């Protein structure tokens, strides 16, 4: 019998499990985000911090622009430069917006259209589903944090002609965006798993960030007068983390090691909580 006429039941092979079962979910998600309306506009604006710093690197390499000595000094100090790039350049707001854009509807839309059941009726575990979704957000966040940082490293090398980057700074350039992206991605997915209404998800997620920031300010500045309470704010915690990784001056009086612990801890709790919510969906 020709193969084309043999039906499914006639096939005697066995289905080999995929090594990365979540990968198709990621690919599909990346495509969906890219195809969203106004995605290109958002991506264009998301590149602004990078472009701004790229110009800075170029300026610093020009002796005729020495009147910008102070800026040049900062730009040439790799640790300070990348700390600034990651935490003070508006990149955090950009990453935050990207996490909203790419991640807010990833689970909530599946809840709305009852498609989690469809995923889980395939040879996929809830953790594979979550990993697939997490990778989508991580992809976009790293695309606009790690990739531009590496391009800036390349630009520095090209414009100055010498390699000045220390190993610890280089490692920090990889670790910081990874941890920041992990934290944002896991939090946005947690919020996304709370409701099938994506608008509510976005507003709650945004409200959470700005409220914790406000709360950190009032508790650390007025009520307890202790800057360590600033760790309640994700934004300030990320700055603290950058201070640890890049060896720059911290703004809070809290021990530096608390920041990575907090970032990883919050990410893991958020992911575990999201997983519980996914498991609760009846197949």
């Amino acid at each position, binding site marked *: 019998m020709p193969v084309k006429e043999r039906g499914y039941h006639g096939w005697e092979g066995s289905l080999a499990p995929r090594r990365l079962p979540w990968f198709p979910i990621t690919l599909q998600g990346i495509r969906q985000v890219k195809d*969203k309306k106004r995605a290109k506009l958002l991506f264009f604006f998301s590149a602004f911090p990078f472009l701004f710093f790229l110009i800075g690197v170029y300026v610093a390499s020009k002796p005729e622009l020495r009147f910008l000595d102070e800026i040049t000094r900062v730009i040439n100090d790799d640790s300070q430069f990348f700390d600034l790039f990651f935490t003070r350049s508006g990149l955090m707001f950009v990453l935050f*917006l990207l996490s*909203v854009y790419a991640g807010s509807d990833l689970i909530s839309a599946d809840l709305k259209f009852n498609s989690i059941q469809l995923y889980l009726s395939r040879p996929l575990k809830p953790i594979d589903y979550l990993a697939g979704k997490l990778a989508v957000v991580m992809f976009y966040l790293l695309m606009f944090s790690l990739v531009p940082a590496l391009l800036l490293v390349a630009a520095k090398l090209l414009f100055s002609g010498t390699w000045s980057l220390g190993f610890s700074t280089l490692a920090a350039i990889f670790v910081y965006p990874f941890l920041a992206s992990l934290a944002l991605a896991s939090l946005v997915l947690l919020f996304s798993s709370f409701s099938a209404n*994506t608008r509510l998800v976005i*507003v709650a997620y*945004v409200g959470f960030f700005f*409220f914790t920031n*406000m709360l950190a*300010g009032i508790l650390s500045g007025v009520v307890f007068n202790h800057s360590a309470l600033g760790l309640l704010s994700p934004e300030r915690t990320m700055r603290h983390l950058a201070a640890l990784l890049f060896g720059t001056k911290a703004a809070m009086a809290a021990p530096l090691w608390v920041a990575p612990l907090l970032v990883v801890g919050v990410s893991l709790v958020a992911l575990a909580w999201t997983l519980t919510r996914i498991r609760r969906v009846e197949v």
Partner: protein
Amino acid sequence: MALPTSIAVVFGFFSRLSLRNRRTWLLMGAAFIPILVLLVARAVTAGRTGSAIGPVLFHQMAVPFLFTLYIPLMGLLGGSSCVGDEIDQRTLVFLTTRPVKKSAVLVGKAGVQAAISLGIVLPALLLSFAIGFGSFILSSEGLARLGKYLLAAGLATLAYTGLFVLLGTLMKKPVIAGIVYIFGWEYVVQFIPGSTQHLTISHYVKSLLPYKAAGEGFLMFQLEPSPVLHAAMVLLLLSAVFLVLATRVFSQKEYVLSEPRV
């Protein structure tokens, strides 16, 4: 059917629906979180001498929370939901194939959102003021100041709701644009010289507040505030213009009910 009657029928139905919605209660709960924080903060600072901590907490915690975060976000969620929910749930057709003007539907629904926001924001503000200022609230000066805060909150709610109702009728995904407006434009404009700040709702809201915040933060003033009456009139006018424009757009635009939206 007469326009006011249609609006009343739509308002009645959707206000009942909203009160049964878990989301409304969730939002109400969220408004009272800072009040809880205020209570805790007052308890912690009870024995502290020196400057009055209550008003400081009110000005630095309750006011920024309500005016720069809660009211705009409530406006965004409520305003964008007026049309957005109907499209997401594909129920818009039930309203647009009845003998009522689309403007009545939109005004009725926007009215519900504004009423819910006001119903949450005003008591939250009142409580925060009471916790912050204590017995001062009973004095005529205290009452006058509270009245100004309430007026500012009320007008801010109307203006933000109106703006985001309009955005919701114009755009398929109004929420991200709204966030960019609230936390991008309104924030960035404070650093732009000239009278660009007049192009934000927050400028007029801030102009109505009786207490001027100093230093950094969302409530910083780079520009002289507008006169109170002027600010109040502008906010009222903006609310009306946004709503009229929204009804125009909603009446003329066709909504295809088959794609999911954000």
